[in-house]
């Protein structure tokens, strides 16, 4: 009898302790304020040469150098409803030099052959890990001498029961193109008034871009995952650039003229496969079409090879081919009666190859035991069948 009583009492205390444990666990979650979680620095140096400058109607030097720098700060916190909040602030600063800019003047005497672009951004995401959903908002601004832009975006994602995720993002860019015409077409009124020739009063024209981006990602098995991406893009307004020339068959020239409407449909696929223990295959394909008649295929393959778990080398290759837009013709081949005309070789028919390699270092305790969590460097060489050639070297430093 005593043994039974002791056993019952013992069981009672065990049960009481177990329920106490449960109550203690659910009361332990505390909201966390936003805290700086990650800082990324990305820098690139780009150099290019070619002989089809759009400013000179499809001929002349396309020599360009560009130094692009960006910093991105990410804060992470949790609110009282156990939702993860992420705030990302970015700032980009690009400085470029372009030999062809001198030819905005008919005689090649334009003083401005360089430019600076400043582009800050702010993104906020709220993620509900229990429901597998997220909501995001973003704001962007860009300013350079001939172009200003304000952008807004909103997005949602939703995980599925079978390791998939749907995403939808809507964005809009509301831009102003400064109307800097080639000197022979610049209205005299631009240089009259305060400042005169030293501070011309350029007009501007609007451009709007609306994009709906759909994405679907799926884990296929323990080594393979895939993504499907589709954008619907609608553009209105001044879609060319005012300092691009076009030369006609009769030898006269004019400013590039393009339609004020453009609809784009790019569709992309990504496939990542972990081969063996050290090699990853990252494949990408995109088909593009628009209502200007341009059709393009893009295919790329990256093969990260893990030399050690924290050091990898990634050779890559990208192939691109496009059939030109309806409104493109080379130097001196446009007819004056054409409704639209451009000699910008970015709209011509060509193929390109882009190949190179990079490496990534990401030891668990940081590079040399510092807050530098990962370092990645990458070099690429790009050639087009239009004889445009470029090289780019990029560096990413991630701090945690």
């Amino acid at each position: 009898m005593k043994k039974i009583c002791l056993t019952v009492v013992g069981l009672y205390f065990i049960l009481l302790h177990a329920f106490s444990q449960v109550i203690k666990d659910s009361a332990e979650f505390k909201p966390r304020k936003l805290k700086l979680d990650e800082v990324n620095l990305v820098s690139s140096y780009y150099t290019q040469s070619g002989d089809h400058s759009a400013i000179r109607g499809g001929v002349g030097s396309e020599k360009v150098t560009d130094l692009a720098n960006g910093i991105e700060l990410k804060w992470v916190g949790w609110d009282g409803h156990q939702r993860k909040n992420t705030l990302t602030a970015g700032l980009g600063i690009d400085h470029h030099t372009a030999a062809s800019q001198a030819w905005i003047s008919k005689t090649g005497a334009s003083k401005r052959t360089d430019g600076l672009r400043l582009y800050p951004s702010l993104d906020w995401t709220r993620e509900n890990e229990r429901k597998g959903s997220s909501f995001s908002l973003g704001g962007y601004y860009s300013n350079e001498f001939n172009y200003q832009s304000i952008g807004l975006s909103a997005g949602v994602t939703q995980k599925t029961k079978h390791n998939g995720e749907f995403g939808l993002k809507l964005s809009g860019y509301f831009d102003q193109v400064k109307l800097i015409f080639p000197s022979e077409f610049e209205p005299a009124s631009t240089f009259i008034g305060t400042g005169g020739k030293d501070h011309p009063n350029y007009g501007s024209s609007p451009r709007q871009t609306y994009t709906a981006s759909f994405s679907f990602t799926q884990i296929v098995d323990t080594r393979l995952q895939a993504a499907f991406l589709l954008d619907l893009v609608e553009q209105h307004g001044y879609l060319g650039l005012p300092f691009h020339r076009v030369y006609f068959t009769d030898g006269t020239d004019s400013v590039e003229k393009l339609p004020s409407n453009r609809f784009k449909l790019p569709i992309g696929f990504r496939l990542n496969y972990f081969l063996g223990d050290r090699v990853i295959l990252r494949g990408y394909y995109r088909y593009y079409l628009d209502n200007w008649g341009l059709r393009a295929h893009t295919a790329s393959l990256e093969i990260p090879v893990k030399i050690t778990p924290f050091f990898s080398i990634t050779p890559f290759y990208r192939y691109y081919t496009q059939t030109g837009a309806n409104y493109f013709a080379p130097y001196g081949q446009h007819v004056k009666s054409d409704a639209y005309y451009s000699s910008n070789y970015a709209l011509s028919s060509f193929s390109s190859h882009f190949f190179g390699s990079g490496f990534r270092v990401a030891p668990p305790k940081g590079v040399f035991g510092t807050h530098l969590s990962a370092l990645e460097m990458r070099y690429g060489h790009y050639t087009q069948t239009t004889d445009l050639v470029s090289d780019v070297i990029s560096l990413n430093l991630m701090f945690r």
Partner: protein
Amino acid sequence: MKRTIFLWAFLALFGSGMMTACTPVKEYQKNRLNDSEMNLSARKVEKNESNFQSYREGASGANGGKTGGGCGCN
């Protein structure tokens, strides 16, 4: 028109094939999938490369980057 119909049919087949061919993967089995190199997005170090390509090529989009607007690019 035929090309568009073919494209949509391929997309539908690819999508349904992807979803039905999947094997269930538990969280503890995701060690390879969670590797940073397996991320289904472009690397941060590629960001400026995509920008340069949007100026030099007519096509853009479907890669998480620019689709047009925000710059004097295509």
